[in-house]
């Protein structure tokens, strides 16, 4: 459908008028349509669009009329089973395979542990986290007119086109990006939000320019203490753009990248084409996708995702289920030590006496994993596993060991890492209101049958 939102709105208004809408009804219509920006953005895809097969403005009009009770009943009853068009497009473009989709709009999907065994996460198996929609530029793969602006507490605000970024000295690192809510499903009571288990992490190979090169080009003022990140994504709802940031020291760390290649390819739409940040070891929400602006600030950022309870944790331990006052919440991150068992898969069956290879990954935010331990008796005894070194700072580390069972029954394989500071992973998850920093010991249930 080629029509613009504007034309569709005008047509619908005329239609309502011609069919006897009262002046009061038209006032309501006008009020709703004045929020066209919101509805227009929302309307590029979604339940109604996919179900009815119509364009953006049409859906927008339907939404605007909810307050009047004008709801197509087919939509109301069938919305659940609808495959979102944008979700379908971006999943297809990245050839995603085997992910568990939590939500189609915004699209959120995680990788099951048994598909996380690669040293470098293939694009098809990298998890997906979105707060909003995928940018139009990314969907069209159109680099025309793209630029990244650096402004704020700098001496010379600068901007870079994609060509200019690609012409700079680039680096390539294997870097983990992990959603701050990864592990939320194991919190009790369950906090709100996507119920991520273990798979909201990927460790792909990212190519780009260290952010510090761009900040140095702009010249940081002495007042620079924090960054604020902005992207080209359309926002869901009527709210400010999603925007998080990091302390300036982290922004100047050499592995914090302005990336334009993922595993050697142009970044897929859903992962942030053409340019995204990669801030390894910190909540994934700091690794802004579709990045087009960084504002250097003289204080901690206060964008959407930095205040209230979002991506924030209490500054003291709280009882499970408690909601501390807002002023007692602080910005969360960096990530703590974590590990995942990538083999065997949950619910695998083995024979008594069979040698079972146990494999996994481990990572530790700003630190390094020094030891991996495995238990097959609910934590009574632990056996040290063979642990690889990180390919580069921050990259996850592969580990493996063999286990064997002398008798039949139900068993669990548990894995626990220890970092260079002696930190390990808990067996009971400390609680916070939104379910961040989950780093529980990973447990894989298996059955052992008589030989």
């Amino acid at each position, binding site marked *: *459908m*080629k*029509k613009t939102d504007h034309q*569709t709105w005008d*047509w619908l208004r005329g*239609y*309502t008028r011609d*069919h*006897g*809408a*009262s002046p009061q*009804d038209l006032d309501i219509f006008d009020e709703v349509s004045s*929020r066209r920006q*919101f509805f227009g953005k*929302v309307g590029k895809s*979604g339940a*109604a669009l996919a179900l*009815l097969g*119509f*364009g953006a403005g*049409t859906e927008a*009009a*339907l*939404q605007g*009329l*909810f*307050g*009047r*009770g*004008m*709801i*197509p*009943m*087919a*939509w*109301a*009853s069938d*919305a*659940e089973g*609808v495959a*979102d068009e944008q979700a379908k497009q971006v999943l297809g473009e990245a050839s995603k395979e085997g992910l568990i*989709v*939590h*939500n*189609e*709009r*915004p699209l959120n999907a995680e990788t099951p542990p048994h598909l996380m065994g690669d040293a470098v996460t293939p694009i098809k198996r990298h998890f997906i986290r979105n707060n909003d929609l995928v940018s139009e530029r990314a969907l069209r793969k159109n680099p025309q007119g793209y630029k990244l602006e650096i402004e704020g507490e700098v001496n010379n605000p600068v901007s870079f086109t994609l060509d200019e970024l690609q012409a700079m000295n680039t680096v390539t690192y294997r870097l983990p990006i992990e959603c701050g809510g990864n592990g939320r499903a194991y919190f009790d*009571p*369950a*906090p*709100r*939000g*996507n*119920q991520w288990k273990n798979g909201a992490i990927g460790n792909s190979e990212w190519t780009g320019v260290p952010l510090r090169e761009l900040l140095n080009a702009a010249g940081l003022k002495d007042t620079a203490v924090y960054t604020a990140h902005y992207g080209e994504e359309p926002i*869901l*709802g*009527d*709210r400010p753009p999603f925007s998080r940031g990091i302390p300036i020291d982290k922004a100047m760390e050499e592995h914090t990248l302005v990336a334009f290649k993922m595993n050697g390819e142009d970044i897929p739409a859903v992962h942030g084409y053409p340019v995204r940040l990669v801030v390894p070891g910190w909540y994934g929400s700091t690794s802004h996708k579709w990045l087009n602006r960084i504002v250097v600030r003289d204080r901690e950022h206060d964008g959407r995702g930095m205040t209230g309870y979002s991506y924030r944790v209490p500054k003291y331990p709280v009882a499970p*289920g408690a*909601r501390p006052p807002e002023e007692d919440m602080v910005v969360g991150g960096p990530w703590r030590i974590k590990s995942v068992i990538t083999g065997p898969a949950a619910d695998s069956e083995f024979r008594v006496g069979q040698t079972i290879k146990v494999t996994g990954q481990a990572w530790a935010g700003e630190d390094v994993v020094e030891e991996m331990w495995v238990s097959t008796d609910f934590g009574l005894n632990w056996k040290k596993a063979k642990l690889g070194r990180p390919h580069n700072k921050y990259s996850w580390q592969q580990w493996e060991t063999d286990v064997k069972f002398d008798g039949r029954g139900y068993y669990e394989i548990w894995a626990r890492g220890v970092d260079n500071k002696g930190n390990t992973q808990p067996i009971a998850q400390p609680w916070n209101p939104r379910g961040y920093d989950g780093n529980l010991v990973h447990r894989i249930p298996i059955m052992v049958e008589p030989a």
Partner: protein
Amino acid sequence: MFKRRHLSLWLLIPTLVTGWLVASSAPSGTLIPTAQADEMSPKQLFEVHCAACHSITLPKSQRLARHDWEWVMDDMEDYGMTWLTDEQREKIIDHLVEHYGRDAPR
């Protein structure tokens, strides 16, 4: 005027305005009577208002206490949720607590 419009939009019209056409032939000449909106079940209110912005697999995957669902609704209204009466809001919260409350089966 319809010939200049895309066919799919034309096909939408029966779905969108069936009730409207009926209403427009009535003396009042209004859209759909507000009373009809209030007759929507809590489930329909939940699906229609929440799916306006996001797919509802997300709320359906939650198991939250009433105070948490109220917190979520507060935030969603701040985020520009489609307009609700107090009564509709309560119906949606009741529905969420009943089906996706802390003790609801997964």
